[in-house]
């Protein structure tokens, strides 16, 4: 019984991770680092909660999350692809912008910096996001493997010169990949605020964007492996929620902090090559210069 609950909870909390990880993969496979995943998720979460509240339909809320995720991503693409800003610096800045901008807009719209108004059950999702997230994972995997446009994305990250030589603009491929990644990240954010919770609250992503990034690396930039990593990290989160306040003996409670840091420690180990080797796309982080 407890095990069943734990599995159900794992599947629920992995949903935002799955979608964000897919967003991260599409963006990073094209050669653009996606530190800004966290910020895009946060903006998506806010857009979904705010629009669902105003219109009363979660589907339109999701649409808003995708659009605002895409807008944020387009802004990021403008800075890093066109203005050639350092991708790590720009990503950090976009994260900070999201942290500051969401309560700023929330204050204007709802006169509260803390959270958006709570949504009734009818404006929230029950199971749909879980199904959508798995469909997205499988579709993106198949797309990158079998469809030409998906292969372009991989080439833009591995061998941009070859792609350019075959007559396809690396710049355009990267732009669209970053924007597509932003859509998935926005969608991921929406599952936080209108599926797992009933409103947007300040800084509600709480590092999930970085966990998703960790899953991308853990899964070696491969959608299916990354999905497995998301399930593993989701399990860690579910276990941690389940063990919160549980006492073992003599009133000693389980130190959940150690379960909390597990995904991060695991990622450090994988990156260091202690458990297999994670090789990033060859041109990751390098701006493309037409030669």
């Amino acid at each position, binding site marked *: 019984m407890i095990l069943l609950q734990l599995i159900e909870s794992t599947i629920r909390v992995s949903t935002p991770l799955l979608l964000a990880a897919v967003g991260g993969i599409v963006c990073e496979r094209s050669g653009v680092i996606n530190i800004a995943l966290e910020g895009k998720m946060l903006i998506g979460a806010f857009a979904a909660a705010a629009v669902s509240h105003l219109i009363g339909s979660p589907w339109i809320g999701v649409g808003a999350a995708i659009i605002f995720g895409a807008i944020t991503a387009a802004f990021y693409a403008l800075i890093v692809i066109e203005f050639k800003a350092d991708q790590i610096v720009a990503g950090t800045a976009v994260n900070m912008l999201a942290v500051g901008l969401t309560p700023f807009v929330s204050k204007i719209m709802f006169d509260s910096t803390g959270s958006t108004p709570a949504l009734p059950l009818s404006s929230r999702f029950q199971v749909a996001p879980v199904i959508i997230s798995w469909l997205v994972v499988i579709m993106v995997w198949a797309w990158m493997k079998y469809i030409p446009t998906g292969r372009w994305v991989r080439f833009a990250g591995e061998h941009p010169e070859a792609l350019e030589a075959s007559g396809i603009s690396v710049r355009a491929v990267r732009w669209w990949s970053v924007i597509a990644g932003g859509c998935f990240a926005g969608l991921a954010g929406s599952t936080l605020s209108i599926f797992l919770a009933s409103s947007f609250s300040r800084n509600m992503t709480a*590092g999930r964007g970085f966990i998703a*990034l960790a899953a991308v690396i853990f899964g070696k930039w491969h959608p299916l492996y990354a999905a497995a990593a998301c399930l593993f990290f989701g399990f860690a989160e579910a276990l941690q929620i389940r063990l919160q306040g549980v006492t073992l003996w003599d009133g000693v409670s389980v*130190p959940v902090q150690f379960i909390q840091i597990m995904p991060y420690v695991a990622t450090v180990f994988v990156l260091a090559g202690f458990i297999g080797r994670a090789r990033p796309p060859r041109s990751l982080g390098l701006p493309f210069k037409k030669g």
Partner: protein
Amino acid sequence: MKVKILRPIIAAMSGIAIGLIIVTFAGENPWNVFRILVKSAFGTKYDLGMTLFYSTPLVFTGLSVAVAFRAGLFNIGAEGQLTMGALAAAAVGIIFPELGSPWAPMLGVRAAFSAGACWGAIPGWLKARRGAHEVINTIMLNFVAAGISSWVVLYLLKNTESQNPETMPIGHWYFVRHLEFFGDAPVSTALFLAIIVSLLVSFFLWRTVLGFEISAVGCNEKAARVAGIDPGKIQLLAMALAGGLAGLVGVSEVLGNAGKFRIGFSPDFGFMGIAVALLGRNNPTGVVIAALLFGALHKGTSDLDLETEYVTRDLSMVLQSLVIISVAADGLWDQLGTAIKRKFRRDFASVD
């Protein structure tokens, strides 16, 4: 040379200007908001003191990011390193409460520096010997540090008399001197430590062999290797030094202000350090100036909650991120620069 100094100044100003234009969406007059910012950051001795109080940790984290950057490394982990530094400073203060005057603060400073250095050395070692990218590792270690510190606070050093998640208070002698000039503002001699450290870092980077080797590895790793420098050793050293510098935030927070470790005391000083280093062009003097600006922004925005109806202190993050983006968007300024030059040339051509 002139362009090098001019560009960050113009970029910072335009970043703030864009941020202030955004406040019109909240129905506020940008000029009015700007006046509140300036008044709140520098208006009274107390305000100035608070600005300096916020600037002090930013000098440390800014230097931390700058030193790592000199070696060609990106230290996104200052947040975790300062957490470990502050935790260590509090821990020695709790474990040896009876220690006397000159030794206690010295032990505190050393604990803060060493703990930060150890935490910074981990991604440094992983980069140098295992080839693992320091950006991801430092981000991950931030979360690990947060987890460990919250465990230590809640299980080992918990203050049972307080409702807040914080450690027991440190011994009386550990406190560094409070500067009376600024009234109630918690400015301490940690401010002087920050300035001395920035001078030392300057000296280290430009006047010592090791400092030169750090720059050499940062400029061109292959060339440095050919010149007989071990890049791995330098990377490890630079990250340890960066971590130690970030760890010194523990001095201004624990020994200079709170007297204990409080979970969540840092309003992302580590990430603000990236902005500070970027704006200060990774130069210790520039870092001090940039830290002052960001300290002033942080203090200035704190009064917006009271003084305006809809603009809150969250504007601080927005302004900072816009400044970072404006400074980082090198391509934009290059394009603007060439466009202006071309226009000038055309104008001159038409005069001829």
